[in-house]
């Protein structure tokens, strides 16, 4: 066993883990944050995407011990517990960008990362290319693409509103 200290959703966490423990196992089993899902064992499906230091990472492909000192954001931490939803969450709901919901946390966090890298004005082609690492079996992607475009736009207006305050 080995110790690792990191921040998860803003809270400091120290865990004693088997060295082969993956980040997704740390989140799901040690911290009981079960919103991060495992859809494959080959880093193909993206259901397990979380943000590590602000960047999208497949948590099934990272050892927990690699995360010493890192800041991890999982779906549970995207919006404040009692606050409003994050604009990207709201956009997925409004645009019916989910059906069974299993790929959704990974999709939403990937979408937030796309906006970070590509900005708030996203065309369909860009979104589809950027979703290369995320599989959805239910929606045919049509409404996910719509949701991400809408969520990206809403993130600008959210930022503008915050700046104006």
């Amino acid at each position, binding site marked *: 066993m080995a110790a690792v200290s990191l921040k998860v959703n803003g809270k400091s966490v120290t865990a004693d883990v088997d060295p082969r423990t993956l980040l997704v196992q740390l989140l799901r089993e040690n911290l009981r944050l079960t919103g991060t899902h495992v859809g494959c064992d080959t880093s193909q499906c993206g*259901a397990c995407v979380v943000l590590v230091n602000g960047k999208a990472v497949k948590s099934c492909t990272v050892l927990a011990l690699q995360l010493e000192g890192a800041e991890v954001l*999982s779906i549970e931490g995207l919006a404040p517990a009692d606050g409003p939803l994050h604009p990207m*969450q709201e956009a997925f*709901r409004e645009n019916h960008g989910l059906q069974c919901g*299993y*790929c959704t946390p990974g999709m939403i966090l990937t979408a937030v990362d796309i906006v970070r890298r590509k900005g708030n004005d996203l065309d369909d082609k860009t979104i589809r290319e950027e979703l290369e690492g995320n599989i959805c*079996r239910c929606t045919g*992607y049509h*409404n*996910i693409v719509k949701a991400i475009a809408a969520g990206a736009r809403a993130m600008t207006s959210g930022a503008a509103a915050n700046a104006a305050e």
Partner: protein
Amino acid sequence: MSATGIGAAVRRKEDHRFITGKGHYTDDISRPGQTYAYFLRSPHAHATIKSIDAKAASLMPGVLAVLTGAELAADKIGSLICGWMIHSKDGSPMKMAPHPALAHGKANHVGDPVAVVIAETLAQARDAAEKVKVDYGVLPAIVDPAQAQRQGAPQIHEIAPNNTIYQWTIGDANGTDAAFKSATHVTKLDIVNNRLIPNAIEPRAALADYDSGTEAFTLWNTSQNPHVARLVISAFIGMAPENKLRVIAPDVGGGFGSKIFIYPEEVVALWASKKVGRPVKWVSDRSEAFLVDAHGRDHVTHAEMALDTAGKILGLRVKTIANLGAYMQVFSSAVPTYLYATLLSGQYQIPQIFCEVDAVYTNTNSVDAYRGAGRPEATFVVERLMEVAARELGIDPVEMRRKNFIKIFPHQTPVVFAYDAGDYDASLKKALELADYKGFAKRKRDAARNGKLRGIGISTYIEACGLAPSQAVGSLGGGVGQWESCEVRVNPTGSIEVLTGSHAHGQGHETTFAQVVSDRLGVPIESVSIVHGDTDKVQFGMGTYGSRSGAVGMSALVKALDKIEAKAKKVATYLLEAAETDIELKNGQFSVTGTDKSVPWAGVALNAYTAHKFPGQELEPGLKETSFYDPTNFTFPAGCHICEVEVDPETGSTEIVAWTAVDDFGVVINPMIVEGQIHGGVAQGIGQAMCEAAVYDKDGQLVTGSLMDYCLPRADHVPAFKVDTTMTRCPSNPLGIKGCGEAGAIASPPAVINAITDAIGTEAIAMPATPSAVWAALQKSGRAMPHAA
């Protein structure tokens, strides 16, 4: 239409928990003291199991038990079953071979579980499994269904000589022969309907907990039909009586058919939880899902269509070999028979149809229902024949279809079904307009100038849904009734719980069922909760598959609401001191016709429970009603999908540049959700047509055993979809619903292939039409360069 009633695009009630990471999927649930199961699986497609030495494994750290098929047999755990009896043309019953949850004596496909390790952690169970020594005697394997029946092929099950499960026929052989004799043209096609792996993104999982105090089991599992799972595990496998077995299917991450079935792993988890006296959790990894989740399709077909000079269809003759894999599964016998051959009439007036189906065992994983289940295979046969026949006869494919459309309803086909309602030309016409069919020639010329081959493909499909009238199902060999149940519980404060036997795993029932209640009773949807997926809460139900939840599950809800409304009106008569016939319910108020006297819904609910205003001897207190709804007919959703593609002749890569879907689903409860079902279904059909294929090598090794080898459609493989509807009401159920869950996957594969073959000018291409397949077809046909045309 109210803002939350029938027809409104209400945003989904269930979404909040999914977008915030608060869903409860099976693997999210843990029990105190739970252990973990890891299955050791056969690496061989066909091998005797000479011995299993588990001694070293059982001494590994954390190991509680290593269990094998011998112990399963000793404990008299029964065989897994197929629940639909098909008789061969000679009258003999299908040859259902034993299917033990752990292979005993012989393994029959790669992935067949031979032992299970139960340990404190999953890592310990995996480590220990590596120490289990299995001595296999490798046998020759048979993989190709077309070769399975030949003399000298390896024999898989003693009960099934020549690996033949059944040889079944439907239709009039002599009449069909006569139709072919009178034909001036016969179109012939050889078709392989490619084998698919469903790949719901949530892997299957089971958490089993045996309580020795009450001698009762609880099973959380990824099921589309938990009551059926309980019935089979109880009545056939003999794990426990139904009253001592609770099955809970919580949030389930997609199913597409693959989670209908009762699988070895959940049976073993239950059995092991009693043996080790601790809860046992098993979660499939994706590699296991590829090997052992029931696959779909896998037909080898020769089909012929007889026509007259004007392009009228005279008859259809089809011979199909269906690969059911190494073991039969719950519905696997029905898929290539009553869910396939009965749909071969398509949307067309076809006087004579004869179809022969041979179902065979091979040393591959089980094949059963996958989204569409038989109907995509039928639609592919019919719609490819139509297109090729039109091209051979020089008739426009649109006109060819119109010429043969069924126009008068009800219409009895030569293959069981009586279509009750439809307007096939209406959906075709609308789709042609939306797709700008008239402008296609210009778009093709423009594409050619850019060095691209442009093609357009039509699919006018029909399916049979709303499974199904129980007597009809019984007469065709089905082992269960196909009704659905619903219980409506009104609470004293007026809030409502709907307990349905339907099960949602992405379909949005928590919203749409609440819309039906809101529409009927005038209550806000927020005060309606939908309860499903727990055998301790819902008395019984048949679950969700075959696009049946709207047509059958909601019909049961309507029947229960009829009773609720009738009872509530009785309560209201006492409150309003009026005759029952004068009371009407509108917008959540009971009022006396022609007066201003009224009482709100919540007031009636409260009084139903306080029972202060009526004598309990005359009217029972409480407000709770149940209905079991048995459909009177199948439903027949139909429509038209049009696919437009551009092929790059240099590389064979194909882009779908436009997709138009116009479907007739009868009455639509929530158009947003229905459109989502079409998007998803079409994407899966595009997957079948262009990228997905389960490939076994000649030794029975699955070559496409991961998401790196098996191509699931990603966002840039599919286009944005243009989706619309037409409407003929379904006459057989109270809401007029036909069902929409499978239509996309049924309609789309022939639309894609018709478009690609139109583009490349040769019919010689099989699914999946990958870039290399398209490129090879172009090279072979000599049409590789559009400029030369």
